[in-house]
């Protein structure tokens, strides 16, 4: 009977994907590749077909690519109905319909939610509207920022030294622009990689001419009489004159449209099982709603079954493929999403990559190379095993460490490695900030699952 339903769905069912970016596109391709012959609809709030975002803060700002032309190549023909430029505004789980901003409704038999995240805006709206204040998430953001940077501003001010903010700082320096970066933590990248590695990133910035201000927050953006940003006020009472401000304070999950739907969705994302099926607010798994990409949070066996939200490019691809496969497969053929988290960044000519979940790490060992040379591999340990690794200009070693994470290798590491230095023989505290304090967008959000953490309360709208 259930198998009959899956057969019917594969032949003539209706699948709707909300979110037309990387995860949505790869899911659509997987559905078709695995034989889905029914009706496929992709809904996206931006008026563009799926495009790649990582180049927007790297190649685009370096003038190597056009912000308007990062569209993703398609792996295959997907024969889909596109509803672009119209946001989904509501979901009726009982009637199985998605409501759209233009008043239309789209019916589905199975739904995939891949609405991702958006840039967290500057909280003071009048200041955020000043001319010269930018976010960087979409291709329109990138086009506007690039144009302004090319015009040669006197100083660019970047709020937040996470990966995105640091990449923008790097591009600005390469364009010969004066840059100030303000970070609440003690160093850049601290939320994602901890204080030890953050100190290396700090040196990298200052040596490349960035005016880096740490342990400060921005208290106000000041505009001139015609509404252009003119200066930035900091918590240490200093004032920095700047004509471009880039707000890089991490991201917010696009789940507001699900308010009142009964789905287990909130500021931390949409909870789903390892097979990408969404939970409803009661913690009961749904049959016909799946989740993938930045907006999902799912339990991971390698990391203590913690619910992980991963804002990683690779996760969007891998989770979309699993979700799509599971949407059109009977229970016995479904697969779990057990992708090992991995990401990359590039700044000031240094390639930074990571595998595993560094913010879970308590201690760090530099097992290859040296921090001083900015060419190294650091291994993070958690409760006696290897949980993550980071590399600066040493990417070819990471595959080895990924296998160590997968097999739960003991920490401190016992093996000898190439280019092991005395400084790497003993673990040191990885120095992550207290997770209960707010931070600028770490790229992994740990959202533990403990009965004492009852922070999300569902109140039905009717």
């Amino acid at each position: 009977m259930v198998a009959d339903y899956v057969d019917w769905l594969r032949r003539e069912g209706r699948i709707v994907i909300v979110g037309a970016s990387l995860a949505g596109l790869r899911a659509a391709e997987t559905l078709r590749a695995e034989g889905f012959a029914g009706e496929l609809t992709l809904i996206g709030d931006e008026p563009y077909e799926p495009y790649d975002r990582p180049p927007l803060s790297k190649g685009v700002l370096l003038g190597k690519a056009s912000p308007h032309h990062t569209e993703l190549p398609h792996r295959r023909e997907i024969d889909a109905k596109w509803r672009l430029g119209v946001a989904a505004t509501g979901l009726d789980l009982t009637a199985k319909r998605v409501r759209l901003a233009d008043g239309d409704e789209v019916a589905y038999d199975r739904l995939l939610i891949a609405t991702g995240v958006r840039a967290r805006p500057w909280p003071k709206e009048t200041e955020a509207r000043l001319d010269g204040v930018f976010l960087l998430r979409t291709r329109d953001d990138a086009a506007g920022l690039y144009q302004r940077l090319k015009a040669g501003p006197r100083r660019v001010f970047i709020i937040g030294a996470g990966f995105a903010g640091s990449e923008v700082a790097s591009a600005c320096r390469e364009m010969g622009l004066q840059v100030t970066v303000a970070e609440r933590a003690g160093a850049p990248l601290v939320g994602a990689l901890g204080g030890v590695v953050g100190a290396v990133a700090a040196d990298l910035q200052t040596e490349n001419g960035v005016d880096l201000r740490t342990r400060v927050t921005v208290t106000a953006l000041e505009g001139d009489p015609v509404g252009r940003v003119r200066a930035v006020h900091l918590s240490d009472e200093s004032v920095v004159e700047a004509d471009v401000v880039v707000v890089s304070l991490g991201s917010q999950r696009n789940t507001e449209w699900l308010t009142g739907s009964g789905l287990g969705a909130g500021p931390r994302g949409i909870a789903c099982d390892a097979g990408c099926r969404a939970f409803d607010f009661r913690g009961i798994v749904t049959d016909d709603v799946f989740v993938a990409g930045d907006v999902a949070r799912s339990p991971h066996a390698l990391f203590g079954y913690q619910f992980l939200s991963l804002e990683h490019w690779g996760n969007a691809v891998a989770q979309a493929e699993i979700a799509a496969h599971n949407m059109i497969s009977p229970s016995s053929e479904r697969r779990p999403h057990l992708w090992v988290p991995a990401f990359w960044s590039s700044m000031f000519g240094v390639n930074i990559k990571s595998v595993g979940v560094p913010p879970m790490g308590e201690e760090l060992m530099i097992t290859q190379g040296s921090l001083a040379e900015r060419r190294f591999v650091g291994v993070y340990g958690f409760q006696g095993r290897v949980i993550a690794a980071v590399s600066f200009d040493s990417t070819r070693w990471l595959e080895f460490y990924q296998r160590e994470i997968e097999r739960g290798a003991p920490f401190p590491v016992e093996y000898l490695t190439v280019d092991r230095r005395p400084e790497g023989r003993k673990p040191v505290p990885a120095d992550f900030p207290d997770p209960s304090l707010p931070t600028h967008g770490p790229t992994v959000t740990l959202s533990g699952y403990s009965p004492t953490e009852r922070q999300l309360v569902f109140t039905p709208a009717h």
Partner: protein
Amino acid sequence: MRLVVDLNKCQGYAQCAFLAPDVFAMHGEESLVYNPRAEEEQRERLARAVAACPVQAITADGLDGAGDGAASGREASDGR
């Protein structure tokens, strides 16, 4: 032609930067920067780069075994 590089896979072997230097460039010792929209006259060089990548990290329209037919209809819809 559209292309994307899986930079999780990329290990900076720089084969693509030698074979299609107008599309790919190394930035520092192992970071790759590339133009996701290559000119049509780069097709042959791009094909060589896709084939030569030791970790098979490059996906390009019509060059990675995906259907060629997928490429044609889309360019027309893009007015930019």
